[in-house]
């Protein structure tokens, strides 16, 4: 036996694995309408954002293995064929203990964040309502219309939000907007930034960078909700008039007051239904939708695409940020995971939307094939929003990781980032 030379460097201490930590709730940007979180409310949100992250990064990524090792082989053996659709996968997965745990925790975490956010908002609703009224009362840039009927597809309590976007607890309140911003930060694992605006920021910078000669003067953000994503567009195009349209008054009141508190004065918040929106034909330079279509319904989605085309001037831009459609080689388990929210998170149109082809839908709405495009925009984050150690984990990251792994093997779809589809009119 020979003595090995003793080295003080050969057996270096292994580098510790960095545990991805989400931002603390206190990283959510404060403004006068944001409910004030007590010490314990902050701690509760910190627990929940860690729970959402844990379920997203430590449990969800195992679901493809549950499918591949157990669910798919068992189905093939008993039925003698492959799964025909995600509904069959859904039923088969329900028998798997690992899936049961993941699904119950995911659903439970979503319910818990609503409970925690709502308790915080309602105990101080009169104060934040009063703060909003200081910005809203008599403002010509907030145009509410009580005649607007909330369509059925909006009144389904999207993403398990009790009362959805539209229900008021106190007459004329902003509760839905405040609940949305506080809770969304947790559900998204901080993935849309301290100002909940990284999608809009990404879109605004994408347009500015890709189309430097495009100088929009009149921009419509359709389904704008609380204006979270309209704000960065209005900031990057300060000479433009931005019209943020939504059916839900509480979101518009919240968004208008918030925009004013941020010092952004070139957005008009307008309550209207996109299908019957009464703006002059050909009067808009750019119509934006950001994560809106999966919260609509098939008929209204198609009608609103047609509407957008008629409202755009020749040479105007229709741009839509949405999850990409399934393609012919999307694996069944990825489809199942991406459809999950349609069944269990009150986003009922999402599964159908995945099966459509946005390019074909745009052409059916009247755009010509040469006008239609699809793009991937790298995410633009706001610098310094979070401490350097923060790594955001979105609840959808497991599905995105599967899609990105596939894309990286195909040169044609190697672009990464946020999916956009649109058309130049």
């Amino acid at each position, binding site marked *: 036996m020979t003595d090995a030379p003793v080295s003080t460097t050969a057996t270096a201490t292994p580098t510790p694995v960095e545990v991805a930590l989400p931002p603390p709730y206190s990283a959510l940007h404060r403004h006068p309408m944001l409910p004030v979180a007590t010490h314990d409310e902050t701690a509760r949100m910190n627990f929940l954002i860690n729970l959402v992250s844990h379920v997203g990064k430590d449990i969800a990524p195992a679901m493809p293995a549950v499918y591949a090792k157990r669910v798919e082989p068992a189905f093939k053996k008993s039925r003698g064929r492959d799964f025909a659709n995600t509904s069959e996968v859904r039923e088969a997965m329900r028998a798997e203990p690992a899936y049961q745990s993941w699904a119950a*925790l995911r659903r439970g975490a979503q319910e818990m964040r609503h409970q925690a956010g709502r308790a915080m908002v309602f105990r101080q609703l009169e104060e934040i309502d009063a703060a909003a009224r200081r910005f809203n009362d008599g403002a010509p840039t907030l145009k509410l219309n009580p005649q607007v009927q909330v369509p059925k597809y909006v009144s389904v309590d999207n993403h398990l939000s009790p009362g959805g976007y539209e229900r008021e607890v106190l007459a004329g309140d902003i509760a839905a907007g405040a609940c949305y911003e506080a809770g969304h930060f947790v559900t998204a694992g901080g993935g849309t930034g301290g100002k909940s605006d990284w999608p809009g920021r990404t879109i605004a910078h994408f347009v500015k960078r890709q189309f430097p000669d495009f100088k929009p003067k009149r921009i419509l953000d359709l389904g704008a909700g609380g204006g979270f994503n309209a704000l960065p567009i209005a900031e990057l195009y300060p000479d433009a008039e931005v019209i943020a349209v939504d059916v839900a008054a509480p979101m518009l009141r919240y968004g208008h007051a918030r925009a004013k508190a941020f010092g952004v004065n070139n957005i008009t918040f307008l309550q209207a239904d996109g299908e019957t929106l009464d703006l002059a034909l050909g009067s808009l330079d750019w119509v934006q939708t950001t994560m809106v279509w999966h919260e609509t319904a098939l008929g209204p989605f198609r009608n609103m695409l047609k509407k957008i085309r008629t409202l755009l001037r020749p040479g105007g831009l229709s741009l839509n940020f949405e999850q990409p459609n399934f393609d012919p080689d999307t694996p069944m388990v990825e489809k199942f995971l991406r459809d999950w929210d349609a069944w269990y998170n009150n986003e009922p149109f999402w599964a159908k939307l995945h099966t459509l082809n946005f390019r074909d839908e745009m052409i059916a709405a009247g755009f010509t094939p040469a006008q239609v495009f699809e793009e991937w925009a790298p995410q633009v984050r706001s610098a310094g929003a979070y401490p350097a150690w923060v790594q955001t984990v979105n609840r959808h990251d497991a599905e995105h990781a599967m899609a990105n792994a596939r894309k990286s093997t195909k040169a044609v779809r190697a672009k990464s980032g946020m999916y956009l589809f649109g058309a130049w009119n």
Partner: protein
Amino acid sequence: MTILDINALANAKAKGKRPYFFDDPAVERVLSITMAVAGELAVTRERLDTIERLLEAGTPVTKANINAFKPDDDAARARQAWHAEYISRILRIVHQELESLQSEGDVNPEALADEISAA
């Protein structure tokens, strides 16, 4: 001033029939309550961390000082790391099931006991 029933409002259920994922809905009921209690323990633990930090700094431990406490960057990171570790610990059984997917040839402990005890 309007008196709102905050607890009832906060607990409101979203529209739609609630799905249950476990074979027996009672399991899900118990899991939901357990996770809610786990959350409340985490809240208490973060409050205790605040009290410890106030004591270390020689700041009087009053409700006002606890509620006004803003962790610095290192403290914020340590607190998030605690939540992450804590959640890993309480969800250990879930991870055991996931790990067993990777090791399906695992030996049944009763069979192993019989095997190594055989003459």
